[in-house]
């Protein structure tokens, strides 16, 4: 059943999907930093308020994924920021996250060598988002 985009239910489904992925488990061995995703508001797309997704990832496991204020996500070790519709493009495979970062469509803050070292893990994490069935607010 589809869950509301960037809701607490979505966070739980996403966390379970990451923890089911053997590819992620292997590629993220040694990862020990928090990751925040900031989803910027787009009121015209029925996404009126910015949200922050805080991911507690450790050594190939998603220990916790929560949805809250954007300011919570901004405190993480790595922060990726984009408007709602860009995240939707990522989650529906219309935008590759690596390309998006190189093009500045997704803005990354954090230690670059570390994130580049874990490119495969971040690609698999993007794959996990595409496997969660989502109800998008602008498609109602």
């Amino acid at each position, binding site marked *: 059943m589809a869950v509301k985009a960037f809701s607490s239910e979505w966070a739980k489904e996403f966390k379970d999907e990451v923890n089911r992925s053997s590819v992620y488990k292997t590629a993220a061995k040694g990862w020990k930093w928090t990751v925040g995703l900031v989803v910027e508001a787009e009121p015209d797309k029925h996404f009126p308020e910015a949200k922050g997704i805080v991911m507690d990832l450790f050594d190939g496991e998603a220990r916790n994924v929560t949805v809250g204020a954007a300011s919570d996500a901004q405190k993480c070790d790595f922060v990726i920021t984009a408007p709602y519709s860009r995240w939707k493009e990522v989650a529906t495979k219309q935008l590759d996250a690596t390309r998006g970062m190189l093009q500045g469509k997704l803005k990354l803050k954090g230690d670059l060598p570390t994130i580049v*070292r874990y490119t495969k893990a971040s690609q698999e994490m993007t794959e996990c988002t595409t496997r969660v069935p989502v109800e998008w607010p602008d498609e109602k």
Partner: protein
Amino acid sequence: MARRKVKAPVEPPSLVDYADPEPSAFASMLGGLIEANVRARPEKERDFEVLVARVGIFVTDIHEGVTLDFKGGRLVVHNGLRQRRTLTIRADAETVMSLSNLKIGLLGLPVYYDSVGRGVAGKLLRGKLKIDGLLPNVITLNMVTRIFSVQ
């Protein structure tokens, strides 16, 4: 009583300059990556100090390029491909990321026998990774790879 002067902490001078007033996201990312690598690892700093070369990197699936102008201890990053390049690397985004994940082995040579290295070598053989100016500049390419690698 004599007053002691309190010195403000001095920021180290930037190793990387951007030629364009608004560097592209790709230019900022590569410049930031190289600066972080060089500052963190003395062996990369040694290469950076002596490397003089103009290296173009063009990402084929986003149609964006940069020119890395290494000037022996300084780097100037240009948006787009500039003229008089020593080497030009053309590949898709995933392969460019793989290049920065190549391990460096004995004698400072990139490792092409592990999974990342085999992937890069395979793309070179299949023409999905093109390096203009490779043959006369193998040593330069190895230095650039060492500076670029996060491994």
